[in-house]
């Protein structure tokens, strides 16, 4: 990061632009990059999901717009942009407009926390694990606001369901994260990831000592993202579309985009915590072997990002697989499942991890 800052300042100095301008604008650059990259990846993610769901259900998926349907999501986004933004007459206009923005913004911030490769982390603080948890839970607020302000009973029911769901599923996540903190002795995502770098490669990652935590966090993430089988807040067969029933056009697109951004962020988060983040599964990176020192360094960043996104997309693949297989859970079984199963199990996991840490010495 310092190196990039230095390069930027040098570039500005060459063109006689004051340093103050550089100081201010430097922080806008990563946000712009994130936004551009994010749009592309999220659009790809939507296509990925639709294609996979198509294949799971004996269909072809989108294949008309662009080669192999690659432009389908772009076309859909364009269509949504062109649509009229309808506000229900009984809605609270201010809150109704605020909700989609509140959904999308935290999702963006969350992506900034992720370490993409060893030189590419935008927001790196000592406790950015907690930052991630806080920001990834913020969209709940927007769902509540959106559901309440849109003056629709289905939306209200969806929002209420969502609150109950999040309350139930945040706690097991917290306990599982605690076990990760114990294992890694760190609350920094990069620190947690580097704690997993052993010579055993994929076998040294935290998914083995903290397997229960891995499963618990995976299930809870499904619930937090309102993915099947926990998609009760937007259960289309009961609540039509849940909290975003009344949303249309660009506002709906923001909700939609926000959901997929969060899906991506959470998949990245899981792969960092349990699947070694940008570490290579073989223990050693490939690019330094293939390339010379100078080129290898730059290729290494891309290799790291490649491993990270490969793992993330693997997680997303499983999420989609579950969506294609499972029916939706009943609302009260869902809460019971969290309070009576996941929570005790995740506390048990914490104890197991503490014992491993105390005697194991593997992750010293």
């Amino acid at each position, binding site marked *: 990061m310092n190196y990039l800052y230095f390069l930027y300042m040098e570039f500005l100095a060459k063109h006689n632009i004051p340093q103050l301008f550089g100081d201010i604008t430097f922080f806008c650059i990563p946000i712009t990059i994130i936004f551009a990259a994010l749009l592309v990846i999220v659009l790809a993610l939507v296509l990925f999901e639709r294609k996979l769901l198509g294949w799971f259900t004996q269909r072809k998926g989108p294949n008309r717009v662009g080669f192999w349907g690659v432009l389908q999501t772009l076309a859909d986004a364009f269509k949504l942009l062109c649509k009229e933004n309808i506000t229900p007459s009984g809605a609270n206009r201010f809150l109704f407009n605020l909700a989609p923005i509140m959904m999308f913004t935290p999702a963006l911030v969350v992506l900034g926390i992720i370490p993409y490769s060893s030189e590419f982390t935008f927001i790196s603080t000592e406790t950015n694990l907690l930052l991630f948890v806080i920001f990834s839970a913020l969209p709940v607020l927007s769902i509540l606001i959106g559901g309440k302000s849109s003056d629709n009973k289905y939306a209200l029911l969806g929002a209420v369901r969502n609150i109950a769901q999040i309350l139930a599923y945040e706690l097991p996540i917290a306990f599982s994260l605690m076990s990760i903190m114990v294992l890694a002795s760190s609350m920094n995502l990069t620190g947690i990831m580097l704690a997993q770098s052993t010579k055993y490669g994929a076998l040294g990652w935290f998914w083995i000592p903290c397997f229960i935590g891995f499963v618990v966090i995976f299930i809870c993430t499904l619930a937090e993202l309102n993915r099947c089988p926990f998609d009760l807040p937007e259960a289309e067969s009961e609540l039509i579309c849940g909290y975003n029933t009344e949303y249309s056009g660009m506002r709906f697109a923001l909700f939609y985009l926000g959901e997929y951004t969060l899906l991506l962020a959470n998949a990245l988060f899981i792969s960092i915590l349990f699947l070694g983040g940008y570490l290579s599964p073989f223990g050693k990176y490939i690019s330094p072997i293939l390339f010379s020192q100078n080129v290898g360094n730059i290729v290494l960043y891309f290799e790291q990002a490649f491993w990270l996104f490969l793992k993330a997309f693997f997680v997303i693949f499983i999420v989609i697989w579950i969506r294609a297989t499972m029916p*939706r859970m009943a609302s009260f079984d869902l809460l019971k499942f969290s309070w009576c199963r996941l929570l005790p199990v995740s506390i048990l996991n914490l104890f197991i991890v503490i014992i491993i840490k105390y005697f194991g010495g593997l992750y010293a």
Partner: protein
Amino acid sequence: MNSTFLKLNLGPQHPSTHGVLRLILEMQGEKIISCEPDIGYLHRGMEKMAEKMSYIRYLPTVDRIDYLAGFFYSELFCRTVESALELDLSERVKYIRVLLLELNRIASHLLWIGAFLMDLGAVSPFFYVFRERELILKYFEKITGQRMMNNYFVFGGVRHDIFDLDDVEEFLKILQNKIQDYNKIITDNPIFVQRTLSKGILAPDLAVNSSITGVNLRASGVKLDFRENDYLYKDIEFNPAVLNGKDSLSRYKARIEELQTSSEIIKQCLEKLKEHTNFRNDLVNPINLKLPTGEFYSQIEAPRGLASCFIKSDGGTSPYRLKWRTGSYYSVNLLRHLLKGEYLNDAIAIAGSLDIILPEVDK
């Protein structure tokens, strides 16, 4: 009205009401206090229409009463007219009718499985069952020229002889494999069992009292199948599945069993069709067809319960009064009792498990 109750209009435009059913729910939180079904958004006046039309002009419209089981209503109407005119069907025609009816029943139940799982939130089975249903519809298209509104039965016979019976045999083989698949992906799915086991309990007394017939009744442990007294099924041996679960799960299982029963009936039909190769229609001239004065009543076991047709004739070219009885109409009525005290997302599953088809309800 008590202000603590949330009044929710479920439908008529709602993704899971299988058409245009409207349920007026009074809810406390997500618990349903009372349910009042409201129908009539798809009323086409089939009964009034009959009084203005000659019999042969009315015949093509009866398929539309239940678009998923058109053959049954077609057969029912033909049967009533035949009983009035005292026409006898030849053996081959009888077995052709049974074959097509049972294929239609399989198609209808397959679609129900998909729609029910859709109500529970599982998307994929919907496409799987459509894959198998497609084979049946293709065969119907080959035989009758239509996929759904077949209009193939006529008074005293069928339009023409049946052919390509190998397709049916092949379909039965495929269906057997697919039923295994359904059992793997649906019946053994823990969430599915959790959502349906002992949900929506329909006591046998209430079921009989509410005039519920067909698979829903047999899933409540009452052995009642109107096919057993049916003259078309006279020489065919079959054993309708009776389950004692009384809940949504056993209604699902009963339908899966029904697929097996139907395929067994079809197998026997195929055997009989090989024996009786002599195709003979006993047709009447449909132009200016007049029924003798009197009241004629006939019934059939349709996929959604007992269906019956009542014709009162005054000797004219069109019925004096025609009345349809459809199974779904009483299932909708039953929802008043069945949904009381359930939570909203169970309610959707329970309503779905009764297999309600709205065109059949509204007639």
